[in-house]
């Protein structure tokens, strides 16, 4: 049957509230008698804390509480990042609320203050005295891996995590190779730079429940906050707000524990909002990686061996570093059918701010490396980059690097070709110093969480007596329409018009827990849960109608406000009378459904084998740039992004993810430079850490393929993270095409490019 609502670019239900300025974001909310919270932070990157004296701060008029680690029932937790089940020691991490005995990174939280005005909290910070004994720190992961490096974390050796892929035999593979490309790649931090700062308000309810109204991608963290306070899980409630940008930066606990502690201590509502400087200095970032790659191929372009060594900067607390490393390891060889693969990956702790989740979650880093390898291999072989891809891309039925058989179509050859052809004929530049170049890259990015996490999601649906509907789903909405799309699903399945559907989202107690808005999993998980609920209700409606009309269930469909027989349109029951009859007969007009992702076992060793994720999304980028050879400046002229999204439930939202992800990836590739020196970030403002403005980007051209082969509702795949995978190597390849320099570290700044162009010209003149 033709879909009526699914596949339409209908506006989100939250869009009008946003254009009218009516949405109350986290920092917009106030409560009577509310206090203001602030975090007092370490002003050194590595030290022993000899003493903390908060007495002067506590005496300051207007201060209601000053909290240090000793006031916290459980300051140190073995964090499973919201996960309920056992995940194995490799994947756990220490979650420490406030510094205890030592400082591991510059800006580490040492104390919390609650006072009657923000200026008072600022003054109180000046009155806290901390005695530090500076310790030697280590600020680079390669240094941190050396045996003589100072210890950063709980383990003597700074390697937080180590994984391996072993497929075939790389020595034999390389022996067969006639052409070998080796490369050393380096990628730096990236800050989420969401426009809404970390923020929330917490209060203690009349029955002692701590309520935290917060901008968060994971409301399941109520469990950890409860444990910090030594309260039952049922006594901590998260109310999630509409989030002003997440991208993984609001996936870990940000302000929630601080809010809960201050509200609990003062018994008053407390608001805490970071400043932009604070956020840039201390909140979690994308992992910097060092990557060494060796790729071997036969002369006709068949890749026979790939070896990679990955080292990520795990920061001073592991957080999600092992998980990100696992993703990188699984993705390290790219979407290619390579018989012999050896990957060794390490996450090394350093005395720098925490590195954790960021859109792509380890995929963009290795994608930059493996696609740079592919493009260089094409150059060395004298082969068209598209042809080289076609010779090696995974196909349905091939083994992934982990040995898992990928049993769905991989249309990357079509996507890459369409993207490349979409660029059309190349027009050369009229100015001698401006060079035009084009680049191609493909990428793979998982959707759905790691399968050993046993991911589940729940959604509740109820029909009202007048035919309208209410959905309750714990899904956090970061702006991608995570809540909205569920209304389209219900409207499609039950024929309820969109404007009659009301959805409540993101309350850890009042809405069924839908799981994290991370890992490109919400459409897949809460979408399927909602679809399941809707179809169950539909089944009941059809069963009832069959009974009432004495018609076979198989003959009945829901269409245009009625349940009607396919064969005889005069046989129908209108929805409203049907619902009322069902209600009168005591039938349940509500369903709470749970959807389970595939489950696998927690990896027990460092060797990663088998299935790790539910599925992958594949995409290709074709990019055109100009490079000004006199200044090194890159101007992005065209970005074509071809993605197989399975099914575009709302094409405008899908395009929005592709366009936004491309630009965020372009920033990563060209201008987002988080400079850090001896563990202290030197660029803690939006004037120094630069993200793209409207004048820095072309109009991204999305090409959307609908293979219908996704695991999400109606065959959809996830599209939240994938668009950030593939653009960086395409841009770097285009730069190479334009001016003959191969940039191997990101960001590919104008300075790097100009200096490389100058060197290349010098060498040319010398030879």
């Amino acid at each position: 049957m033709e879909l009526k609502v699914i596949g339409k670019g209908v506006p989100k239900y939250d869009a009008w509230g946003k254009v009218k300025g009516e949405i109350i974001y986290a920092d917009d909310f106030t409560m009577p008698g509310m206090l203001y919270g602030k975090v007092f932070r370490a002003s050194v990157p590595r030290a022993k804390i000899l003493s903390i004296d908060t007495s002067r701060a506590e005496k300051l008029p207007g201060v209601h509480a000053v909290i240090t680690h000793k006031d916290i029932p459980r300051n140190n937790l073995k964090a499973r990042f919201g996960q309920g089940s056992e995940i194995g020691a490799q994947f756990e991490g220490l979650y420490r609320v406030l510094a205890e005995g030592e400082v591991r990174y510059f800006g580490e939280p040492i104390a919390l203050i609650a006072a009657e005005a923000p200026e008072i909290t600022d003054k109180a910070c000046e009155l806290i005295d901390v005695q530090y004994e500076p310790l030697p720190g280590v600020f680079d992961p390669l240094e941190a891996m050396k045996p003589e490096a100072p210890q950063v974390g709980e383990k003597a050796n700074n390697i937080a995590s180590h994984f391996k892929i072993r497929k075939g035999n790389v020595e034999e593979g390389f022996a067969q190779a006639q052409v070998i490309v080796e490369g050393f790649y380096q990628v730096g931090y990236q800050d989420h730079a969401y426009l809404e700062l970390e923020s929330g308000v917490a209060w203690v309810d009349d029955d002692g429940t701590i309520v935290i109204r917060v901008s968060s991608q994971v409301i399941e963290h109520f469990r950890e906050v409860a444990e910090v306070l030594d309260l039952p899980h049922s006594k901590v409630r998260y109310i999630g707000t509409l989030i002003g940008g997440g991208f993984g930066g609001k996936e870990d606990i940000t302000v929630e524990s601080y809010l809960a502690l201050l509200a609990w201590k003062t018994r008053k509502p407390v608001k805490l909002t970071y400043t932009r400087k604070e956020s840039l200095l201390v909140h979690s970032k994308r992992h910097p990686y060092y990557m060494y790659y060796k790729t071997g191929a036969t002369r006709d372009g068949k890749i026979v061996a790939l070896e990679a060594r990955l080292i990520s900067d795990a920061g001073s607390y592991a957080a999600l570093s092992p998980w990100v490393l696992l993703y990188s390891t699984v993705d390290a060889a790219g979407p290619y059918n390579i018989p012999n693969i050896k990957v060794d990956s390490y996450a090394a702790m350093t005395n720098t701010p925490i590195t954790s989740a960021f859109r792509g979650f380890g995929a963009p880093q290795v994608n930059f490396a493996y696609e740079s390898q592919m493009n260089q291999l094409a150059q060395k072989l004298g082969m068209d980059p598209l042809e080289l891809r076609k010779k090696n891309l995974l196909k349905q039925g091939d083994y992934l690097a982990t040995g898992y058989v990928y049993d769905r179509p991989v249309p990357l050859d079509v996507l890459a070709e369409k993207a490349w052809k979409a660029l059309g004929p190349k027009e050369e530049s009229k100015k001698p110093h401006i060079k035009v170049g084009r680049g191609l890259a493909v990428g793979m990015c998982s959707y759905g969480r790691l399968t050993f996490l046993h991911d589940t999601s729940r959604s509740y649906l109820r029909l009202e007596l007048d035919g309208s509907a209410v959905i309750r789903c714990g899904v956090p909405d970061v702006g991608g329409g995570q809540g909205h799309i569920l209304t389209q699903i219900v409207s499609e399945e039950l024929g309820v018009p969109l404007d009659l559907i009301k959805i409540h989202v993101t309350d850890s107690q009042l809405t069924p827990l839908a799981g994290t808005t991370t890992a490109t999993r919400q459409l897949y998980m809460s979408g399927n849960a909602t679809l399941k609920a809707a179809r169950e209700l539909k089944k009941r409606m059809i069963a009832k109608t069959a009974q009432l009309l004495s018609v076979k269930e198989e003959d009945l469909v829901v269409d245009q406000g009625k349940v009607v027989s396919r064969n005889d349109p005069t046989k129908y029951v209108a929805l409203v009378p049907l619902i009322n009859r069902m209600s009168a007969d005591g039938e349940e007009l509500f369903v709470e459904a749970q959807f389970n992702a595939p489950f696998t076992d927690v990896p027990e060793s460092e060797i990663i084998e088998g299935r790790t994720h539910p599925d992958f999304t594949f995409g290709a980028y074709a990019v055109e740039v100009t490079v000004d050879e006199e200044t090194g400046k890159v101007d992005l002229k065209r970005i074509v992004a071809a993605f197989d999204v399975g099914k575009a439930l709302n094409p405008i939202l899908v395009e929005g993810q592709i366009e936004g992800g491309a630009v965020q990836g372009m920033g990563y590739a060209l201008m987002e430079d988080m400079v850090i020196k001896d563990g202290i970030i030197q660029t803690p403002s939006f004037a120094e850490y630069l993200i793209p403005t409207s004048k820095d980007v072309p109009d991204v051209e999305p090409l959307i393929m609908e293979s219908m082969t996704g695991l999400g509702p109606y065959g959809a795949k996830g599209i939240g993270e994938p668009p950030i995978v593939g653009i960086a190597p395409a841009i770097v390849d285009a730069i190479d095409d334009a001016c003959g320099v191969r940039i191997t570290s990101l960001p590919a700044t104008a300075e790097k490019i100009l200096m490389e162009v100058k060197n290349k010209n010098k060498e040319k003149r010398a030879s």
Partner: protein
Amino acid sequence: MKNYKLVTIFVNERPVTAPVEPHESLLDFLRHKAGAVEVKCGCNQGDCGTCTVLFKGKAVKSCLVLALQANEKDVRTIKGFTGDFLMGKLQESFVRNGAVQCGFCTPGMLISSYAFLQADPQPTREEIKTAISGNLCRCTGYKKIIDAVEEAAFGEASTKKATSSGSPEISEGQEEAKGTYLLLGGG
């Protein structure tokens, strides 16, 4: 010793009187004294544009204006445009074109767009890009915002599609996306 001065600012034509410290910004006043939390604070340094309001008829970043400089003057936030034809067109266009994802940049973005279209009702796409270049957006990649401003200026039929010349285009209906679709058979 705190030094307060009384200030009266006409916020969306409604006078709001409150004591402010000399260094307080208009943004502080709007959010904390006038209850105008629709004006956002993204950086407090003039680098993001989320605090953009109309001040004496011009788009300004309210974190860069002293509250006292706005004494007896008019400030218009996104909530001050009820019944305004141009803003209504802009808002509808933003909603319809998918120009609103997380929405945090949206109030400031709308005000910059509004001020721009008032001064330049028939802009080129490049001119629109320049007009919003002081307003950061991290979600949309700007394209749909520019589409929306263009549509508000010229009407629905005019929105320029940015697909390349070689591919087929889907052009019927506003609800269809402006991307290009490739079909790989049924699943």
